[in-house]
């Protein structure tokens, strides 16, 4: 009897959990910018440039290698930035809709601290927030 009751409880519980979904249960998915992959690429190129600079500083690269590689990376970066500009200009409405939906968080322009409400002066560094 106990086994039967447990079996019924297990079925009812799992079916209810899986199928009873309210509107509020559907999570809001963060919007993704259409240029997101290009932003990622841009970040990777910046990272490569930083790396290159460091490797040059530690003497792993000759001047010529450094200059050539740097130029190559800058060309790549230029391509990515141009593509981003092109995408933003061709689909401005979509970009604005997708990207600028996030609420604006008051942020100190000096130290970057974030606050829940807007303030005249930064609570961290004391500089003017406006």
């Amino acid at each position, binding site marked *: 009897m106990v086994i039967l009751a447990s079996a019924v409880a297990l079925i009812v519980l*799992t079916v209810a*959990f*899986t199928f009873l979904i309210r509107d509020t249960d559907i999570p809001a998915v963060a919007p993704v910018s259409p240029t997101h992959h290009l932003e990622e690429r841009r970040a990777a190129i910046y*990272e490569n440039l930083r790396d290159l600079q460091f490797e040059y500083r530690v003497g*792993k690269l000759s001047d010529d*290698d450094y200059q050539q590689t740097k130029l190559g990376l800058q060309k790549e970066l*230029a391509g990515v*930035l141009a593509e981003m500009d092109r995408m933003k200009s061709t689909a401005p409405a979509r970009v604005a809709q997708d990207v600028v939906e996030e609420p604006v968080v008051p942020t100190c322009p000096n130290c970057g601290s974030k606050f829940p409400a807007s303030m005249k002066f930064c609570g961290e560094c004391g500089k003017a927030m406006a």
Partner: protein
Amino acid sequence: MENIGALAILLAFCFAIYALLGSVIGKLTQRPFLIQSGQRAVYTVWLLVTVGAGVLIYSIMQGDYRLAYVWETSNKTMPIQYKFAAWWGGQAGSLLFWSWLLATYSAVVTFQNRRKFREMMPYVIGVMMSVQVFFLILNAFVASPFRLLVAGKGVVDLGDGQGLNPLLQYWTMVIHPPMLYLGYVGFAVPFAFAMGSLITKQPGEEWIKTTRRWTLVTWLFQSCGIVLGSAWAYAVLGWGGYWAWDPVENASLLPWITGTAFLHSVMMQEKKGMMKVWNMVLVSSTFFLCIFGTFLTRSGIVQSVHAFASSPIGQYFVWFLAIGISATVYLLLTRLEFLKSEAQLESVLSRESSFMFNNLVLLASCFSVLWGTLFPVITEFFMNEKISVDKPFFDRVNIPIALFLLLLTGIGPLIAWRRSSFDSLKRAFRWPTILGVSTAVVLMALGMRHVYALISFALCAFVTTTIATEFWKGASAIAAKSGQNLIAAMIELTHRNTRRYGGYLVHVGIVIMFIGYTGAAFNQSKTVELAQGESTQLGPYTIKVVGYEEGEESNQYRWDRVIVDLSKNGEHLSIEKPERRFFIASQTPTTDVALRRRLNEDVYINFAGTGAGNNVVMQTYIFPLVSWIWIGFLVVLFGTLVCLVPDKKKLVFPRMEVVETGVGHVKPAKV
């Protein structure tokens, strides 16, 4: 109770099908409720498989020997930790363990990404649930752990079970299978994301970024599993080997090799957007090799010392592999355009080409191991005769490959990304080469003549020097700029790029392990029959029999042991007690070797049996440098953990804007 377990598994199977269909159909028809319900079903599957596993563990702990699985894998005298290990100690239980791990991973992945990847996630869930459905088919219909041994015969108590294979009753064996399984199953996650990305043609490398840590952790689990298995074989099996190229060992190594190749080549995609197809192939191969490994282990298709029962389960795996591989190949072929490289190889003398070499060599090794493992199956199919290839074949092929990989480990860090001029390479290679060659010369002068050993030690010195130079140069640059001392600068350096410097630490660990493996070139062994009071000489060691004892351990096993006096060059070192055990319930003999571990060499004594009269037969060995393998692995573990630490916050790079796209000039924008 077993009815609840069986019902839970059956329900889990139904919900897994629902999760798969709900997610995919929900996405195709744009119904958020269906997608959400599919996601919920993933959690439900986890809950149900957990209930099923819980019932099995409870039955094992309670000693419910009516269940065939419990009777086969446990008995009353087994300590509690081995009773728990009985969960994965047999066929049906280990498949349930696979299912449970996959359900857990799926639930975690679903929860972590519940607000992300609107496009991709339903397919990720779809892929993971396809695998889950397959394993639940096995759990529910093919190899159920809830099968009753005495169903309908009116028997309520069977007294006692057979017990877990005594060879598996060893501490590393409690951890080794879960570790390997965590690794095997874990690769389902990057594979599912790769397929999700492929199906939805996601631009960018999001799937790689998301699964980066998963892949690394999974790889670490696999590594732990393999090394723990080696440690177990070394300490328990009585012949002193840690790797025998047994098919089941090979099965665990294959996905590890492709996983290692993937960890390297994925950097090319992240850095330069190259090798996208190759990375898809590698992540898929790794996943399917994990399934293939489980198939080899569980089907009994090849002869193995891991004497798992031969069963009809193999055909299910063959079908799953055939369908899975076909679907993956189809997806890849139809999306080749989307996987086009964003950059080309700029120079042969570049880090990229060293990674490509590394991948090719790893692939060659993987292919040779796969070929050797499947050779008996292939010959049986074509010639009606099983021909096995043995350790010498694997050694002959893989030792040179491994040494070449070690060389690449040293070369990689010396070459810059994109291009390196011959002059800068000459400068970078000077000291590592001098130290490598000097090591070989000194060892030759000391009398070493073993060619592979000389090459190996020289390469170890070469790689160590390159890595040390990397740390030293980087730390010096930071120290010069910030005024920190060298140690603090080294920590700072590692923290700035944990993946790179953590990776170097992993390479140091690999070098240390290679030193340990190279020690095998100088193994010594001798099998002797001795009477009490007699002794034998092995290298500088004198092994003298001084006594014999026998007894019984808490009704679990009977034992007899030899008391041995071990001395070196006439100086007494220790009393050793190699032992034989006879497990009563399973009627199985095992040995408990005497092992004196030291950094330079291990002395290993196995009590093999008794000879004429009261003589004892002993196998004695000297294994030089074996401890370095285990120490090296600890360094690998540490290095991998360092890789998992997030990088220190990057310095802000000046914002750039395009000035002249045609020639590709960029300049810092006004900030």
